[in-house]
């Protein structure tokens, strides 16, 4: 088992890529700690699966290196890398029993039968598959089959990393929860590095210690769920994570403050030296709906018009509009259960430490 490093990785499916748009992965440097639980989160087509296949060795990157520990494995085949992968659709060997499915990777590696037997039984116990060992794998339900796929990765003691490519897609909703908790438990018991690819933020945030968010072939942020929530590095992270996503309002700069239609707003921190906006750069204020509230009576705030409120259980999501006519910008805020929602014109206040300034999509502070 070892740490995995990706260095200056780029990948294109075209033979002669010319522009950035030709790359499924645009320059990527990442490090995965040994024993970590990671989630790779992003919308369909953002390059998650490409990245996964490069780590597993099913794809060879156009540029860059893949290192397991200090060993360069860029050109190594999947079986030489000692990785395991669970696919979106369960892959089982239909003609074999559950037992033979689990034993298959070990038999291919010519382990002594006694050792195979004890490993298979140990893993079957972990996955609650003991009672089904004699059954034909083809007759199992989707979640059972997915457990077998996972089991084939777990039986090998030499596995560097187990990767999951949206493994719960075909699982019934009520079993998703069960299987997800199982994964978390297995991670703790085995201490294996796990990388979980998904486009579902709930899955990512509940499974992982660290979430890597991808967008258009690049990693826009890697961090703990709390970091992603409180300080999104990119506006994409802001609105992709969280429900509803982050509010973004076009603004201008005036000294240390942002100006929205003449109203001054304080944002968190100071602009970094390397993030000074060029003229014509797109400036936005980002604030999560959780950190916007209606102003108290004596307080001055941003004038808005209340449009509608939707009940979302423990809180209500209120849609308001800031500005007039064509220049009006939508804004959402959360009001806790029982909180008052004014009708018509109102004023809202942003929590300054949670208000961030974005230049061309990237956080500036």
């Amino acid at each position: 088992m070892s740490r995995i490093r990706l260095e200056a990785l780029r990948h294109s499916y075209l033979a002669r890529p010319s522009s950035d748009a030709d790359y499924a992965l645009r320059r990527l440097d990442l490090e995965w700690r040994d024993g970590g639980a990671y989630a790779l989160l992003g919308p369909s087509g953002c390059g998650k699966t490409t990245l996964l296949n490069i780590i597993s060795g099913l794809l060879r990157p156009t540029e860059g290196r893949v290192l397991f520990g200090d060993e360069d494995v860029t050109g190594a085949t999947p079986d030489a890398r000692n990785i395991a992968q669970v696919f979106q659709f369960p892959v089982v060997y239909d003609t074999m029993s559950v037992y033979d499915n689990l034993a298959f990777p070990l038999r291919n590696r010519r382990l002594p039968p006694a050792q195979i037997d004890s490993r298979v039984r140990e893993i079957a116990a972990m996955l609650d598959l003991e009672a089904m060992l004699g059954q034909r794998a083809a007759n199992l339900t989707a979640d059972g089959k997915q457990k077998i796929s996972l089991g084939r990765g777990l039986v090998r003691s030499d596995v560097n990393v187990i990767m999951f490519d949206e493994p719960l897609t075909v699982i019934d909703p009520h079993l998703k929860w069960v299987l997800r908790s199982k994964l978390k438990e297995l991670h703790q018991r085995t201490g294996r590095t796990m990388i979980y690819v998904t486009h579902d933020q709930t899955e990512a945030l509940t499974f992982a210690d660290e979430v890597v968010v991808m967008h258009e072939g690049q990693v826009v942020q890697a961090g703990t769920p709390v970091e992603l929530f409180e300080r999104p590095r990119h506006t994409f992270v802001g609105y992709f994570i969280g429900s509803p996503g982050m509010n973004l309002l076009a603004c201008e700069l005036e000294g240390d403050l942002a100006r929205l239609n003449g109203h001054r707003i304080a944002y968190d921190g100071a602009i970094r030296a390397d993030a000074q906006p060029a003229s014509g750069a797109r400036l936005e204020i980002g604030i999560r709906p959780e950190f916007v509230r209606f102003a108290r009576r004596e307080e001055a705030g941003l004038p808005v018009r209340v449009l509608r409120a939707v009940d979302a259980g423990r809180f209500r999501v209120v849609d308001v509009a800031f500005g007039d006519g064509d220049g009006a910008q939508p804004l959402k805020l959360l009001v806790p259960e029982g909180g008052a929602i004014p009708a018509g014109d109102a004023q809202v206040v942003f929590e300054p430490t949670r208000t961030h300034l974005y230049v061309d999509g990237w956080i500036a502070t």
Partner: protein
Amino acid sequence: MSTKVENQKGWLFVLPVVLLVAFNAVIPLMTVVNYSVQETFGNNEFFFEGVTWFEQVLHSERFHQALGRQLLFTGIILLIEVPLGVAIALAMPRKGIWVSVCLVLMAMPLLIPWNVVGAMWNIFALPDIGLLGRMLNNMGIDYNFTRGPIAAWATLVAMDVWHWTSLVVLLAYAGLSAIPDAYYQAARIDGASAWAVFRHIQLPKMKRVLTIAILLRFMDSFMIYTEPFVLTGGGPGNSTTLLSIDLVKLALGQFDLGPAAAMSLIYFLIVLLISWLFYTLMTRDEAT
């Protein structure tokens, strides 16, 4: 009083099919049944004979030999065409321009009319002017399919393999193409050998299409007539007289309508029985 609304219009919709099936299957078959239990001396006079013709056919040495030859022929071509077809399908490219090229090449023999195939191979194999026949004889092999039974059989089998292996290839290829990439990827990760991939992924996933392929090849080869008729005419002697050729000799050559009709029915029942056996055996464990 029934409160059900009686609507008999449905029958009108079924009628075309009933008529179609009646005229192209049931009525002709009943005609054969009719002949098989009667004797005629011409003048449209018929005498009832019961199961005499069936007994005669079932006890005739000639029928046994034709049936034996037929089983041997079908057995040989199945043993060659199915593994060969699967092997070719496995070797075919999965993507790129060569896919279409291979598919067209494969489909070609299937598009040639059967009697043309027979004629082609007849000329191709002629010992004096045919390319194949000349070549074999020049190589010192005494080859003459109109004289030697073994040469005749070899030519017949080669012709059928050339003509019909493509069908197995196309079906097996379709089966292979339907296997999701994830299976191959999982197998690579599990460290499976090429043989293990074939044995545990490709073969099981091809099972359904191979069942169809084997059934089709069994039925078609068991009823083969045109190509051997054009190539050897059943000779030399009776060495390539397969069931259908023998049947035509009996029915049209000797004009023994009764025995020929009885033989037709027995022939039909054999095809039906073996097809059913094949199908039941091959789909046995899919019930669950």
